[in-house]
């Protein structure tokens, strides 16, 4: 709209200006033309007047022809348009002439004669039609004839001869002629005189003015040499256009600026929204403080953390409401450190207090806040609530403790068991030897030598002591092994889930990659969860330790859980632990499961022995083989529960109880 208007103005304005200029020029021309006409008429009138005065003198008879010549000569000389003045007597003969050459009326052109006759007849002065007399070179002349009467008696004529051309040449000022072409036209519009000092007229500004003389109608036509005004001929219009263009540019620039400003504002708003959303979504608490320690900003996470609203916090000076009383000294010290710029960028742990008084551990990172000039204005702190992490750490620690203690218990039980087994062998042998000897003595009772009588009680005592030692071992064993492993149906996956983080923990320091593959749809196994966990952890620890000297790329531990068979051809779940470590040399393989045999300096040599005992207790087997790609493979199978036979679990338990009363006894207490 504005643009259309501007365009309309821009096109209309020059046009209007042109119109105005044109009409101005036209009016000017008209005025000038009128003025020229007036000038010509005035000059002619003056000449007529002069001639009238002369005629009056003649009519009074006070002027002789000689005097006439004397009076008129300067007149003709001064007025260049006047070619000559002449005095004719009533018959048309020349009385006198300003140039002294008397030419009779009859020698003059017919139109002059006609005009003279007309003047004499009407008693009124009259101009003749332009005509060129014979003696001139075709230059047109007009004559003014003034009839003279003395007492109503016609006494002659006074005539003024004008060169038509000189009417324009001499009577029109040069400055006007400079700008305009001027023509004198007769009634037929034929040009009788023309002046074009400033070149031909352009035909743009013209004016016609009738020069009404008695007996003669001449038309003065002016034709300005000026061309039609150009569209932008003048400075004003140019300035206006330039200003308009400037205005348009300013408008455009302004709109561009506004658009840019809007875009920037939009981006800023978006940025602010983004930041707000980010701040709101953060679980990390953020707070800003100025140099005095006054809180200038808190985010929602921080508010939620300490249980206070932003209004309650902003503008507060230390001590803060979330400071725990017992840690005040620590805060002050920290604040001093921060102010001194000696704080650590790693962050520090401390305790905060919630609105309800509960304490929680936090980890704080501080960073300097600077304004746009780079001046230090305060501190921005991010606060992490690490109570969950602490809890997780404590849980993990407890878990490890529990596992280790149960491992210790299991180990003690197994040591006792192994000791019992190892001691039982020689004790059994002693007992058998003694019993055999006694049997022989009893058999040969008939001979009954006195030596036999001496030997017999001693052998009986030896056998009894061997039996006693066996019983002691058994009771100690039973005492230590308070917790008889309890086998319960459980999915092997739960065992793996428990040990997986611990295996990862074991593997991390050695950069061992752990892969665990569990076949789908495995039946549950009947197992003591803690013991099986210990076996797996023991085997994985051995595997990880065996890989410490191999290149890191080869440090891969793989655990495969799959369906399989036990020795007794029951369905089972096999656990295979494969490493790529140093493997097991043949000489070591022979003694691998022997108690108190270890390849490790600090090893007790019970690990694999216990593992095998545990697995055999579960009715499975622990075997090892050589990994074709280097390293060792340990595999054990645990009997699986056939889900189709639902009674098996109770069967197994009752069997164990029936055959081994000791087991049943401990069972009932667990």
């Amino acid at each position, binding site marked *: 709209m504005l643009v259309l208007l501007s365009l309309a103005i821009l096109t209309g304005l020059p046009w209007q200006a042109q119109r105005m200029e044109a009409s101005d020029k036209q009016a000017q021309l008209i005025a000038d033309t009128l003025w020229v006409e007036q000038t010509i008429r005035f000059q002619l009138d003056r000449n007529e007047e002069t001639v009238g005065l002369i005629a009056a003198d003649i009519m009074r008879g006070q002027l002789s022809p000689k005097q006439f010549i004397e009076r008129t000569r300067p007149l003709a000389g001064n007025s260049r348009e006047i070619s000559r003045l002449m005095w004719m007597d009533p018959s048309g003969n020349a009385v006198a002439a300003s140039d002294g050459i008397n030419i009779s009326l009859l020698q003059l052109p017919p139109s002059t004669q006609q005009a003279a006759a007309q003047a004499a007849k009407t008693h009124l002065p009259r101009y003749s039609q332009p005509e060129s007399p014979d003696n001139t070179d075709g230059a047109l002349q007009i004559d003014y004839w003034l009839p003279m009467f003395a007492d109503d008696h016609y006494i002659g004529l006074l005539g003024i001869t004008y060169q038509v051309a000189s009417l324009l040449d001499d009577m029109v000022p040069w400055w006007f002629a400079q700008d305009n072409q001027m023509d004198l036209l007769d009634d037929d519009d034929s040009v009788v005189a023309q002046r074009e000092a400033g070149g031909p007229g352009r035909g743009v500004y013209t004016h016609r003015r009738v020069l009404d003389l008695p007996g003669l109608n001449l038309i003065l036509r002016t034709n300005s040499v000026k061309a039609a005004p150009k569209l932008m001929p003048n400075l004003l219009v140019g300035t206006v256009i330039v200003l308009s263009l400037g205005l348009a540019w300013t408008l455009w620039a302004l709109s561009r600026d506004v658009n840019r400003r809007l875009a920037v504002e939009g981006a800023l708003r978006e940025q602010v929204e983004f930041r707000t959303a980010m701040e709101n979504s953060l679980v990390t608490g953020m707070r800003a403080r100025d140099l005095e320690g006054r809180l200038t900003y808190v985010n929602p996470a921080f508010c939620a953390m300490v249980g206070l609203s932003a209004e309650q916090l902003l503008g507060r000076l230390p001590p803060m409401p979330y400071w725990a009383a017992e840690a005040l000294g620590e805060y002050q010290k920290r604040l001093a450190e921060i102010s001194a710029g000696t704080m650590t960028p790693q962050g520090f742990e401390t305790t905060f207090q919630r609105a309800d008084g509960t304490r929680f551990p936090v980890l704080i990172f501080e960073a300097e806040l600077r304004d746009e000039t780079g001046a230090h204005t305060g501190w921005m702190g991010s606060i992490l609530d690490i109570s969950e992490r602490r809890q997780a750490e404590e849980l993990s620690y407890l878990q490890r403790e529990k596992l280790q203690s149960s491992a210790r218990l299991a180990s003690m039980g197994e040591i006792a*068991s192994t000791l*019992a*087994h190892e001691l*039982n*062998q*020689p*004790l*059994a*042998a*002693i*007992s*058998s*030897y003694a*019993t*055999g*000897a*006694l*049997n*022989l003595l009893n*058999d040969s009772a008939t001979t009954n030598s006195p030596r036999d009588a001496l030997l017999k009680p001693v052998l009986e005592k030896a*056998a009894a002591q*061997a*039996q006693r030692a*066996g*019983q002691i*071992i*058994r009771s100690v*064993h039973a005492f230590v092994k308070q917790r008889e492993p309890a086998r319960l149906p459980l999915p092997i996956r739960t065992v793996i889930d428990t040990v997986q983080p611990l295996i990862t923990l074991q593997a991390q320091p050695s950069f061992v990659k752990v892969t665990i593959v569990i076949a789908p749809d495995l039946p549950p196994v009947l197992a003591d969860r803690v013991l099986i966990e210990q076996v797996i952890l023991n085997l994985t620890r051995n595997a990880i330790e065996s890989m410490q000297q191999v290149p890191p790329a080869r440090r891969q531990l793989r655990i495969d859980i799959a369906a399989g068979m036990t*020795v*007794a051809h029951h369905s089972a779940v096999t656990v295979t632990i494969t490493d790529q470590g140093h493997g097991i040399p043949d000489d070591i393989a*022979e003694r691998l*499961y022997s108690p108190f045999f270890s390849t490790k300096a600090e090893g007790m040599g019970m690990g694999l022995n216990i593992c095998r*005992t545990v697995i*055999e*207790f*579960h*009715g499975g087997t622990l075997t090892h083989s050589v990994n074709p790609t280097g390293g060792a493979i340990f595999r054990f199978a645990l009997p699986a529960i056939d889900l189709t036979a639902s009674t098996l679990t109770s069967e197994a338990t009752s*069997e*164990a109880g029936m*055959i*081994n009363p000791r*087991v049943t006894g401990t069972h009932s207490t667990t």
Partner: protein
Amino acid sequence: MLHIVDDEEVIRDSLVWLAQSRNIPAVAHASAEDFLSACEQLQFDPGGDCVLLDIRMPQQSGGALFDVMAERKLTDRLPVIFLTGHGDVPMAVDSLKRGAFDFFEKPFNDNKLMDRVEEALASSRKAGESAAVQVRLTNLSAREREVLQLILAGKMNKVIADQLGISMRTVEVHRAHIFDKMNVKTAVELAGLLK
């Protein structure tokens, strides 16, 4: 013959000594593999056989050896008594279910073990005898088997002769052949054998 299978030498030696003190012939094998190779040329003892088997041995375990024996149907003529340490009980129970004679947990009472060994020997002997009787029965002719049935039914020679339509003399010859082939002296002894 008592076969002792144990990886521990002192156990083998003491058990052999113990068995001999009870007048039980005994032989020791250091491993399951040794015993199995001995089984290849094994002559059953008329006095009966028994195997004392340690469950835990380094290579092939007692349990595995028992599985092989059960597969070869040797456990009737070679009853197995397991010797177990602590923790081997479930495997022993499993073996018992599959036909082991008994199991003893260390430390055991030696003479009770020997008593049980003697029972196992008797069981083996009996299994061996019944196996022998079956072999002898297969040596009888069809007519002799008919006569045997009638003798076991307590029929007199004359009644048998009438029933079979043969002479008394022929019956007596058959009877003599039967007694000879079945290795008995009297009809009572024969009845006892085929009871």
